[in-house]
């Protein structure tokens, strides 16, 4: 299925949901897992709390369906709502964003090439160090790192999700990579030659 067809389907689902609220379950089913994973990657909240955020995300999505900007992809729009809701939850609870995300083999490959990580590290050891390092990054850098390298979003999409100009996103990604590299370096995760 091409990207256009997916978006066309999303548009149709939005229209259908506006006509009948029962159709909104299609959106829930389609995005639930992706969004849950995104919230979990970004936070250290308990599963129950993540479910609460997720529920709030879908309720807000439903209430604001008429605000869906058709110049964006529906995916960007719902990720935006999720991101904002997650950040707001942190601020309300006065907690810092602490990622508990543990990378898998696929992600390790991406990071290895993006920030030149030596590949012979023990995965468990690396996961621990990586999580610690990523938690030392400012909130905005942490978000772009996840969106770009883990969620695999492009600059334009990240710009639509975080509501920042694409140029700013590009700068953040570069700085995030450099900062993460420095932190990993301090923690003994060296750059390969």
């Amino acid at each position, binding site marked *: 299925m091409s990207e256009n067809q997916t978006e066309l389907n999303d548009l149709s689902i939005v229209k259908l*949901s*506006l006509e009948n*609220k*029962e159709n*909104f*379950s299609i959106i*829930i*089913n389609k995005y*639930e*897992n992706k969004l849950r994973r995104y919230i979990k990657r970004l936070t250290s909240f308990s599963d129950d709390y993540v*479910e609460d955020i*997720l*529920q709030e995300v*879908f*309720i807000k999505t*439903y*209430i*604001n*369906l*008429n*605000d869906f*900007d058709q*110049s964006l992809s529906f995916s960007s729009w719902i990720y935006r709502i999720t991101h904002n809701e997650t950040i707001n939850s942190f601020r309300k609870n006065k907690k810092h964003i602490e990622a508990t995300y543990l990378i898998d083999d696929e992600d390790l490959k991406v990071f290895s090439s993006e920030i030149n990580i030596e590949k012979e590290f023990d995965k468990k050891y690396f996961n621990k160090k990586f999580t610690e390092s990523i938690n030392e990054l400012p909130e905005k850098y942490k978000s772009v790192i996840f969106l770009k390298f883990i969620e695999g979003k492009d600059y334009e999409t990240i*710009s639509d999700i975080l*509501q*920042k*100009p*694409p*140029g*700013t996103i590009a700068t953040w990604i570069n700085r995030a990579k450099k900062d993460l590299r420095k932190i990993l370096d301090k923690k003994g995760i060296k750059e390969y030659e």
Partner: protein
Amino acid sequence: MNKQKQQKNIENEILQKISDENLKPKPKWEFLLKNIYFWTLGIITVILGGLSVSATIFVFKNIRWEFYNMTHNNIFTFTIEFIPYLWILLLIIFLFFGHNLIRKTKHGYKYNILIIAGISILSSIILGFIFTTIGFGQIIDRDLGNRIPFHKGVEVHNKMIWDKPSDGLMVGQIKSIEDNLFIISPKGENINLLTEHLDDNELEILNQNKEIRIIGIKKEGGFYICHIIPDLRNIKEGLPIKMFKKEFERKSGEERSKECEDVRPYKKLLYN
């Protein structure tokens, strides 16, 4: 199996909540109105920025640069004294708010910060010049500025730095009562003017009963006039100081009383 159950649960919970609380999608016009609201506020801040620019232009046009060396040691200290800090600060605040409001519009986040800032500054400057020609700068600086606590419009400020008889400076409206001439200071005081060393031309200027600046010496019986500076703008717009030196000052040093020689503003007038 568990995953499917969890998925079903959240789906049911959400749909249940929508039904129980009778939640409905907000109408389209609400979002449209919100967007219009931010654009309108953004445009208003640019207009307010334009008004700040026009007040700033008015201040710089009415600083009375021609008198700087009589009241200040150099043009730098004079400029620092008259920079319209309030209007410039307000312009910065309006630009900041304008930028934030435009960012809050539907596609506002896509615009580069420099583009928004550049367009806002340029629009404020263009509007500022338009407002200046309409006369808004004067209205803001004079009528509004003088009502703001701890702030003085440029005209009042200018008079205040000339209302220092002990420093040899005076400004005010001339009033003649019988054979005596008085100057009404900006504070409303009537000060007798000692005119014995003025020539006929200078006396004639005094007798026009207009606002005037005087350089002189504060004495027991009043204010001894060394030199008078009529409001040149009433005579000819932008007449430079050197021209009025020739026009209004006596050329021969002997004719003038020696008393004025040590008055600082007078010395500046003679030798600069």
